[in-house]
């Protein structure tokens, strides 16, 4: 069964808004996929994310999570149990002043028995590498650490889908790296379906699939390498290439026989190869 499906979904925040925030989106995401959703601010990508776990319900069309219709209020609880979500601001997601109490919040809400909650906290904190901070105060942690706690708080509910709504946007490079490492591991080792909303092009390269949103519509949907090879199209949607891809493109335009590279290592590889060919 598909993890998530969208069938011609439209969404509008207020009736008098001039345009749909999400405008006729159809797509499906298989279980275990790692999908990056790209787009400028205001392109509808965050709205798309919130439609998945029933924080928003479609104005038109239908969204399902493992076959459950998000518009059906009776299913909301089950949908949120299977599709967890981490948000942008690391300061606005914790409810408790102690890490373990915060991670316990989700399991408490869904009525997990006490002994089991302890095990789940262990599991979740281990998965994000934050066991050592179990008794710390979130407000004293770094941004990256706070987001890992937020991820642990979601993991403790044992969802099958993890949605990250620009969860790396406010972090420094180190924090971003920490969060990306955690979610990559969750996807690889546990088969977790990951939906990563981001505007860092480099992060999209870590995914299996990249979806580009523009004015509420899905305008590109392919492997990240393919998306970044269509640079003119990307430009039209006001997105930029990852820097390494930009350099390799310019080198090719200058006549050098380099193939498209997506990170520094690949780029160096290509440059060395073409220099040594001579």
């Amino acid at each position, binding site marked *: 069964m598909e993890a998530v499906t969208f069938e011609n979904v439209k969404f509008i925040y207020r009736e008098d808004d001039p345009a749909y925030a999400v405008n006729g989106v159809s797509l499906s995401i298989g279980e275990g996929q790692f999908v990056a959703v790209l787009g400028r601010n205001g392109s509808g990508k965050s709205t798309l994310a*919130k439609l998945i*776990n029933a*924080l928003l319900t479609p104005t038109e069309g239908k969204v399902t999570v493992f076959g459950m219709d998000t518009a059906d209020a009776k299913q909301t*609880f089950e949908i*949120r*149990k299977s599709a*967890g*979500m981490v*948000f*942008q*601001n690391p*300061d*606005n*997601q*914790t*409810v*408790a*002043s*102690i890490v*373990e*109490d915060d991670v*316990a*919040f*989700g*399991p*408490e*809400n*869904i*009525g*997990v*028995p*006490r002994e089991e*909650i*302890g095990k789940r*906290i262990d599991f979740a904190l281990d998965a994000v590498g934050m066991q050592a901070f179990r008794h710390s*105060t*979130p*407000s004293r942690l770094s941004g990256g650490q706070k987001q890992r706690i*937020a991820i642990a*708080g*979601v993991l403790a*509910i044992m969802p099958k889908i993890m949605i990250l709504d620009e969860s790396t946007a406010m972090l420094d490079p180190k924090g971003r790296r920490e969060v990306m490492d955690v979610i990559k591991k969750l996807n690889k080792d546990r088969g977790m379906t990951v939906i990563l909303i981001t505007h860092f092009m480099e992060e999209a390269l870590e995914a299996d699939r990249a979806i580009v949103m523009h004015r509420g519509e899905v305008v590109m949907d392919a492997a990240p390498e393919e998306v970044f090879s269509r640079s003119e199209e990307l430009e039209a949607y006001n997105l930029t290439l990852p820097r390494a891809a930009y350099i390799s493109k310019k080198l090719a335009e200058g006549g050098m026989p380099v193939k498209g590279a997506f990170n520094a290592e690949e780029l160096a590889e290509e440059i060395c190869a073409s220099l040594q060919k001579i």
Partner: protein
Amino acid sequence: MLNDVTFGQYYPTKSFVHNMDPRAKIVFIIAYIVAIFLADNFFALAAVTLFLIVAVLFSRVPFGRVLRSVKMILFLIIFTAILNLFFYSSSEELHMIWEWKFISVSWEAIINMIFLAFRLFLLVMGTSILTLTTTPVALTDGIESLLTPLKWIRLPVHELALIMSIALRFIPTLMDETNRIVAAQKARGANFETGGLIKRAKAVVPILIPLLVSAFRRAEDLGDAMDARCYSGAKGRTKYKKLTFTWRDLIGLLLFAALIAGVVLLNTYLGGKFEIIGYFVK
């Protein structure tokens, strides 16, 4: 800076008092307050003080750290003490020292002042031991648990406790935010230090509005985050931390029972606080 120094009192260390059940601690603090106001002569007050010292020792919080909380209300203590010194009146006849129009100083007033100031001092010291040794979460859990009987009169105990815990959790965040906004407006030439009352009140607007806007934004985010983590009120909810009553709490309880009994005994057998005057004046 407005940092954790003044709030978020919790002093992290391991101690007998830290490990006590928060409910027991809350009950103790209530008993302690009762004892303070029951104590009616110097011996009884000394007994309470002795108890306080023992509690501080067992909490392993440095004495200076506890004293700091008194510093914050020192002004209040001095102010009420002075009022009491000059304006004390009683239906009994007073041993006057000095009089001028409606202001007077009597032996009774001096003793009353000392009592009052000392009681306030003990009160603040005791309550800060509670907040220094108990995390905000444990404190709210304790309060929630103690208030549980009130569920019968339909008081939303769980929601109240959650609100309190979230409020405590956001205090450091909003303090940081306030610092940032103050710095940003100062960089734009804002002046919060000088000027009359109205001017200063007006100067607060550029801080207050961004702070409110931010608080609303945070509340909205938090609401979404709680929804996403399946929050739906107290129904069907379990609790990870069970409060457990142990031998520590029992020892504490017994000691407190002894304290109250002691204070009452001392009060009865050693007379009222003014009897000491007899030693000074005839």
